[in-house]
């Protein structure tokens, strides 16, 4: 029992990060049908920039803030300079553009920062907290709490603000949204900005546990995409559940089946879900007009 709980704790911690990356995927996808493979790079920028700013003597909260703002600027520039000019290209072309962007951002990061692994000091000590025979790191609580706040904020944004409603309208029907006066280009820019911000915050939160390096974004984008698909592409709540579930699957797979093949366990589980629920866990039924 204690062992199971331990796996659940570590699975949820990793899963929370997947969930935020998946949420970022979903926001951009809803506004544009683009799968933004540079999503993981925002997490990297958030973590790595904070590490270097802290090392330069800037206090952690300010360093984190600067890092998050930098990630947002990168996200907005990505939209303005690469996505917007390619307006009207096929989805595959747009995917390749974001992949090019992710290679570019990684390349710049290895020049601006370096190629070493870096760690951030945990925010509130390293003494594990005992829970029912298992232990949880204080930083894991930061990650889980931070994720909860981010998810709540994003949902509040989507449900309660005019900008969020515009994003949901664009997701439902882009043409109709434009007809009622929604600037869908603005909406996409907003989606890039928000997904960059939440990705960077996740990066700051998780770096004390997982370490970070210029190239950690690739695997995060991969897992985040898988999580978003598992939850049902386009569903914000689905991406959060998908992320947590993917983290749990990996952790339980590593604990009970094989630590070498934990990624295999997770992906096979995802494929099995698709066979039973082709739209993912929370995806709406897709009805196509002809």
């Amino acid at each position, binding site marked *: 029992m204690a062992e199971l709980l331990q796996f659940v704790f570590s699975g949820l911690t990793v899963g929370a990060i997947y969930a935020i990356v998946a949420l970022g995927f979903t926001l951009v996808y809803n506004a544009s049908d683009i799968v933004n493979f540079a999503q993981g790079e925002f997490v990297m920028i958030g973590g790595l920039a904070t590490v270097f700013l802290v090392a330069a003597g800037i206090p952690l909260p300010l360093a984190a803030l600067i890092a998050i703002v930098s990630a947002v600027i990168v996200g907005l520039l990505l939209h303005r300079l690469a996505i917007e000019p390619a307006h009207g290209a096929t989805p595959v072309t747009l995917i*390749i553009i974001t992949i090019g*962007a992710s290679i570019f951002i990684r*390349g710049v990061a290895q020049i601006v920062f370096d190629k070493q692994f870096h760690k951030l000091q945990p925010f509130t000590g390293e003494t594990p907290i005992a829970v029912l025979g298992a232990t949880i790191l204080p930083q894991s609580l930061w990650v889980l709490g931070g994720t909860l706040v981010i998810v709540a904020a994003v949902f509040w944004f989507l449900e309660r603000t005019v900008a969020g409603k515009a994003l949901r309208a664009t997701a439902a029907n882009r043409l109709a949204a434009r007809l009622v006066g929604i600037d869908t280009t603005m909406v996409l820019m907003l989606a890039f900005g928000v997904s960059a911000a939440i990705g960077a915050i996740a990066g700051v939160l998780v770096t004390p546990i997982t370490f970070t390096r210029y190239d950690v974004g690739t695997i995060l984008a991969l897992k985040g995409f*898988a999580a978003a*698909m598992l939850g049902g592409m386009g569903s914000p709540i689905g991406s959060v559940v998908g992320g947590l579930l993917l983290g749990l699957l990996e952790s339980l797979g590593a604990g009970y089946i094989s630590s*070498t093949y934990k990624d*295999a366990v997770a992906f096979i589980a995802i494929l099995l879900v*698709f066979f039973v629920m082709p739209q993912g866990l929370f995806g709406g039924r897709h009805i*196509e007009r002809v």
Partner: protein
Amino acid sequence: MAKLTSSRYAQVLLLLAVVAVLPLLFPSSFYLRVAALVWISALAAIGLNILVGYAGQVSLGQAGFLGIGAYAVAVGPAHLGLHPLVAMVAGAALAGVIAYIVGKPILRLRGYYLAIATLGFGLLVALVLTSEGAWTGGPDGMSVARPVLFGWRISGAETWYWISGLFMVAGAFLALNLLDSPGGRSLRALHDSEVAAMSLGVDVATKKLAAFVLAAVYAAVAGSLLALMNGFITPDAAGFLHSIEIITMVVIGGMGSVLGCVVGAAFLVMLPQTLTFLHDYEHAVLGLLIMVFMVLLPRGSVPSIAARLRRAAA
């Protein structure tokens, strides 16, 4: 020129001519090796183009199939005593069978499901190749025995240049013929509108599956050639980044264009070689060039340029 890119025989002849003439221009055998790499990558890209360009499906795990072909000629002779050529055919067959099994349930779904399934599949192949060290040498890779055919030991940059060149031209010829066959036409029809194709009686799922299996076999053959030429193979050949590289070749060259695949392969193979002088800036410049390329020529280089030439001629 516009006419040249429209007839399939003209395209094959053009490729043959390029393969035949290039060695005359090369000052050293280093260029032959790079060109052979271009032909091998182009072969994988041409195969993927059948799936992406003709049938409109995205695969993000093509390197997984390439890895199967590569390790077939490495593991087969070393552990099972197979002749490299037999191992190569077995690898291609294995890739095809796996593509059939993976593709059959997945290709019924729409959207990015094939992308995620192939992505997971590619990851699995790389994982198995890295983890089963007793068979594959683990992350450090393994050496591949030089193939011997009727007492002739196949090696040397020049030999491999011609072998890879011929395989690439043959692959291009097959793909171009497919495009003009009833099967290829129905593939293109479902690319344009799946519903329209379906209502005209095209068995959409079966056609997509055939394209997926064919793409896998192309990739496996390319992988076998790569392993045999290099005499060495590591799991990176099956990795996610390599998959991305192959699909980028197709998109940069121009989806649906066989010549485009060769251009895209040349671009992505030669670029890192020419950018090495940039040292640390290499990746940044590579990413930047891919972005600039796609933003300026969203349909890919060959179709965009061909369209421009047609406009100029008209």
